[in-house]
């Protein structure tokens, strides 16, 4: 579930409020958006992907909140990792993050070949 919107990074563009499919967030006048309905979060990570400022942290637990230490998250290297691996925004032309989703079928074939080879 979404755990943090980091004030130090958030530009209050409210993009996350717009794109959250389950309407977890709310606009707060002259402030950063508020996590208004955390229990509705479906842990889809879409807010992280759409946040150009890497200001959001979603915890993996999809059943209950799991509070995290903000300082630890800020230095963890986890913020923005998802958006970078997707090659979004400023990462679009970085050859390390080329979209290789098309390899999915090959991966399944490799797994099948391993089984055939008895490994």
């Amino acid at each position, binding site marked *: 579930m979404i755990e943090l919107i980091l004030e130090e990074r958030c530009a209050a563009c409210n993009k996350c*409020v*717009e*794109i*959250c*499919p*389950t*309407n977890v967030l709310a606009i707060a006048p002259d402030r950063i958006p508020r996590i208004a309905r955390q229990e*509705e979060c*479906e*842990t*889809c*990570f*879409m807010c992280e*992907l*759409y946040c150009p400022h890497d200001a959001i942290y*979603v*915890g*993996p*637990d*999809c*059943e209950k909140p799991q509070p995290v230490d903000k300082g630890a998250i800020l230095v963890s290297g*986890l913020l923005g*990792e*998802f958006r970078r*691996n*997707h*090659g979004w925004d400023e990462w679009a032309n970085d050859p*390390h*993050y*080329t*979209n*290789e*989703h*098309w*390899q*999915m*079928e090959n*991966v*399944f074939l*490799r*797994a*099948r070949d*391993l*089984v055939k080879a008895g*490994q």
Partner: protein
Amino acid sequence: MSISSSGDTLHLEADVLIIGGGLAGTWAAAAARQAGASVILADKGYCGTSGVTATAGPGHWWVPPDPPELRENAIRNRQKSGFGINDPEWMARVLAKTWESLPTLHGFYDFSKDETGATRYRELRGPEYMRALRKIVDSLGVTVLDHCPALELLQRPDGSVSGARGIRRQKGGAWQVNAGAVVLATGGTSFLSRLLGSHTNTGDGYLMAAEAGAELSGMEFTNYYTVALAGTNMTRSMSYAFATYYDEDGNRLPIPPGPDIIRPLAAAMLKGKVFCDLSRTPEDIRAKVPIISPNFMLPFRRWDIDPYRDKFEVTMHGEGTVRGIGGLRIVSEDCGTSVPGLYAAGDAATRELVAGAISGGGNVNSAWAVSSGQWAGEGATRFAVRQRGRDSGRPIGQAGLRPVSQHAVDLRATLSVVQNEMLSYDKNIFRAGEKLKRSGEVLDDIWKIFRAHALGNGADVLRTRETAAMLATARWSAASALARDESRGMHQRDDRPQTDARLEHRILVGGLDKVWTSGDRSRPLELAS
């Protein structure tokens, strides 16, 4: 399109209303617009992130037209694996439509090239795919209503559907769209199982259509499950192709490789915790996983688990009618339902026509969404042209909106009964007649109370209707599974292990206060070619 407003209700008019803005809904909106209709698309969440495609990566059913034997063989194989209830003509139509459709995303989706330099159209990454479709519907002039869940359909005196109404959950108040025809692209339902991306998919379209008199089909095929790291919803399956499973004592479980892991894994999970590692994954694939499926590693990284080295506990999340197959019955080649002016696309419709009695998985289901979406959008446009005037019909929602007498009904408790009957491995995977009969009785009992007394108020109205939809869907599923008195495809009955040739037909289901089932003897579905 015209706009007016009375009180706190936004009134809109359009030729075609699309309900649901996921994969099928966006393709439907684009096709209706290109056929000349004015189009409104209402999404419960945000069109672009809502639904199960946005968190996934569909690899459409994709077979080249030349040489023709390729498609003939693909169809023949699928007929065999679909256990006789799919239809070769629909399969051919879907293969052709998908093949011609995906290249039209050029300019909106940044297609990858493989090592031979060939453009890869087939496998599209979910968030990018849905972002592209959102850009397409915006560029075509579709009016998109985000965060506008539909609550009920409107119906004309002649029985045809004339629009819908719902709530504006960010802007406040209500909306009503009077339309010539309506496409339901509301997705399937996982009964809120915590399947990735399915939280908005609560079967609303099934309930709304049934209230208008529509039938469903294939609702017994609702028992596909997908593995995830315990405590998470990360049901991305690719990396589990290399999984090794263990019991609580660390003994390796004899789970056969391949697709048939659900029953043996469920049997093991009923005995105790099941663990897994991905140590068989080749090094070069490990390095690529973050740029193939970027979300897969997120939970492991954040919990500091190395899945290639550590054993981690796994669970399975039920897919309901998502990777299951059932949905609204399709009665015409333009994806019309049995109600005039009401069309169904994607997981809101039955996918038996193409998938048969086994899961459509990502391939067949996404090809179906692309194709059925466009056929439904075009069909709705033709219906709207014939329908002169935009006179408003009557709102027809029942359970949760118009109770006989209002008493408080516990939504959480109701959902928990539905989930217990529809998701528990014991009842839903290891099916038997007696268990299904009992499920039907339990669900009927709570339906009676819910129908008579539940009334959604204010912010509760959406969850009330969602709960009603899941409860109704569960009843159709239990009744269909009981009526299919045999084992076929994903539907395995421990008390009827054989396939019965007399049941080689689709099973229809419907009804609200009284659920009925019947055999669909009309196959093969007639196609005016």
